[in-house]
């Protein structure tokens, strides 16, 4: 419960910081890109949710990684995310992001194994488990196993609400 509250606190803090006027928390460099909340469809994004366990430090790295990805600098995206994993090695959300970065970089084998790692770490956390499985579905799709991808999606999208 305490963790949840802390996470919620961080999320709120980040929202506040990202709004105009507030000083943005930054990684390394003063004046670097401020952290922005991801506004994509939550299905495509695993972090930045209220129930996240991800700390503001690793969240900052995830944001950096997404910017790097957007700029097609996939190697850097992986570097940022691995740095985040070094800080929180058991955070399934980070492994999902890492899997997605490898997928974008065309490294399917790594993407696959990282998604499996995320599934293993998600354990009984249904939300994380679902996101990790859906990530694996994307990879299976890219690997050419559309049927398996569809089956996974059918099974794990149902709980989405």
């Amino acid at each position: 419960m305490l963790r949840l509250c802390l996470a919620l606190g961080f999320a709120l803090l980040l929202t506040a910081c990202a709004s105009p006027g507030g000083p943005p928390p930054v990684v390394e460099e003063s004046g670097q890109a401020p952290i922005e909340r991801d506004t994509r469809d939550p299905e495509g994004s695993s972090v930045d949710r209220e129930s996240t366990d991800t700390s503001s430090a690793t969240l900052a790295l995830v944001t950096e990684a997404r910017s790097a990805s957007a700029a097609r600098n996939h190697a850097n995206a992986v570097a940022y995310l691995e740095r985040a994993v070094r800080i929180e090695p058991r955070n399934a959300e980070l492994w999902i992001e890492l899997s997605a970065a490898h997928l974008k970089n065309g490294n399917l084998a790594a993407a696959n194994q990282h998604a499996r790692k995320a599934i293993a770490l998600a354990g009984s956390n249904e939300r994380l488990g679902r996101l990790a499985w859906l990530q694996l579905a994307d990879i299976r799709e890219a690997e050419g196993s559309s049927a398996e991808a569809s089956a996974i999606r059918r099974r794990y999208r149902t709980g989405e609400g």
Partner: protein
Amino acid sequence: MPEYAAPITELRPLAARKAKSKRAATKSAATRRSTKNKRPSVWLRIAKFGALASVLGALGVLGYLVYLDRTITKTFEGRRWSVPAQVYAQPLELHAGASLDRRRLQIELERLGYQQHANLPTPGTFKRRGEDLEIYLRSFQFMERSRSAQRITVAFRNAHIAGISGEAGDVALIRLDPALIGSFFPSHGEDRVVLTPEEVPHLLVAGLKAIEDRNFDQHIGFSLRGIARAFLVNLRSGERRQGGSTLTQQLVKSYFLDNSRTIERKLKEVAMAVILDWRFSKEDLLTAYVNEIFLGQNGARAIHGFGLGAQFYFNKHLSELDPDEIATLIAIIRGPSFYNPFRHPERALERRDRILNTFHNDGLIDTAQLEQGLAQPLGVVASPTSGGAYYPAFMDRVRQELRTLYDPEALESQGLRIFTTIKPTVQEATQQAVSDTLAQIEADRRIEGGALQAAAIVADSQTGEIHALVGGRKGRVDGFNRALNASRPVGSLIKPVVYLSAIESGLHLGSTVHDEPVTIEPEFGEPWTPKNFDDEFHGDMPMVRALAQSLNLATVNVGMQVGLDLIQQRFRTLVGHDPDNPYPSFLLGAESLSPLKTLELYGNFASGGFRTPPKAVIAVLDESGRAISQHPFALEQTIDARHAATINRALEIVMAKGTGRSSPYARQGVAGKTGTSNDNRDSWFAGFDNSAVSVVWIGRDDNQITGLTGASGALRIWNAMTATRGIDPLVHPPSEQLVDIEFTTGLRARASCADIVTVPVPDTERLDIKPGCGIKNRLGNRVRRWFGG
């Protein structure tokens, strides 16, 4: 001339020698022809001979000079442009919530050579303000981005970082600069910090000229005036205060000349110096000198260059040195052992003061600086990290990884920067634990001091990144690296592979196994009758106890039931290679692995079922900061998550109730396994908690008996390692159908009536119940069992 005439002939390039013999042949033909005509006068013959000899001599000298030119130019270019590959440790990450108190951060900063200073005047300084630390971070080019120098304030609460603020507000995350742990100098294998001309402080440049070579900017590489002055100074003082060598000559000497004082060597040195001076700019030469000159010895490691010298003697970057420190380094040049500031501080201090006075007389420093400098003690530091951290065993692994990825030439490209996984504090604590514990064990057991050797490795349990790698009891000595290269029988460390295969074949931790005599008749060779460590038979028991108490007979029985082939196949997927031993003795660990391979084996369990080969290199960047290669986490699922969780519970019970129970940390949430090879030659321990996996080995280099078991040897080192690291207790993934069973019998029981362990069992109702524990089974199941359901 005769003294050096011989070497000229010897050294003359082959082409020149051929030319000579050709000419000689022509000459003799001519002579023959002329003899036929008329006899020339004696004088004419002498003159002709003299002319010919001069021509030949001149050609010889020219050829020799060409040869010298090629040699010295090639060496100079090679060294000047082969900026070494710099190798960095993992930087410390600072962020709110990180478990780090002010004292420890201060230690980390001091290790990196940050100085306490009231005003934070330059990068590389810090100060305490109340409970906070203010740090002026140095700039650094990281893998993903470069960071400029900046001031931050770190606040602490309850031994954690409470928050970090920077010049533009809160900072979510920031790194200290990583420690430089070494460099590969491909062309000459030495280690140094190479500086560009811009990085050499002005005072050092001017000071070197003032002290070592006043005419540097004017002379041609060699200076008669310098020699004359040195002669006069030495004559006047009655001792050898000045050398007549120019900086260029000293550079040549340091490149490849020995210290013999022959005229031949001296002339060669002068010739090379003149050639260098003619070919290269003064600035290039001075920079090369600053990077090259010998400044002392640290054990087996030579300290070359001012960059490394500044680190070694002052634990500072060269750019951060004060005038008195620069003067001390210049003082050392003249005689690194005579003026060794650790061994002969009074001599070094006297010479430093003389140099400071010269600086002042030459107007390089003002009077205030002179007085301040003279008032300073020598200030050399003898910390274990001075000279930069130096971890040869880990560096071996870095080289090994790089070798598999690049050909040596690629590594010789300039100025590569290699980012690695090592955590210097973990490395040093691990080395300390190994060295201290071995000495204790030897003392306790009256083993001859120094007879035992050991290896230890610590890695991140999820990513396989190596945080520490210890290859022997002495950390700073290059030598046989046992962590990588000592391949020894792992003994009982193999058993989890046997039990994993059993679980995958449908058994569970509560399944009854039989610790009773067994003899295996192989198709070829002698029958094999293994024994238990205590030479007893323990009868029927639950599988978890057989593993926890490391019972050999039960393990062989289980193994033969499951099938040796299947188990060997399993081994292959877990470590990535075939076992060497195809016989049933494999089941008891008659299979040799290096400590690093053993770590890889246990990484499968520690990571919850993923093979994560240990790795040391994160990325290699070229001079411009571009990643020329990146080594992302490599992992491969090898064990179903449920089965991995089951084995990990069993390995936790090994610690709590089995062979690991003597550890003070046995019940704090760690999993592990002891191993002992035949006749107690090798003592092993492999263990992990939620964040780190480690392997420790103790044995003797001559493979003689140590008398140690896994628990009485390697586990003690692991205890010492854990004492400084602490435990991050294992978190179990949710497991269905956990049940309490009696440890000795495997009967369902309760803590109130038996010594129990909690294990996952797929069909709990099938377990027998310990009478008197008040557990009722459901009738239906009983009926089913009566009928063999």
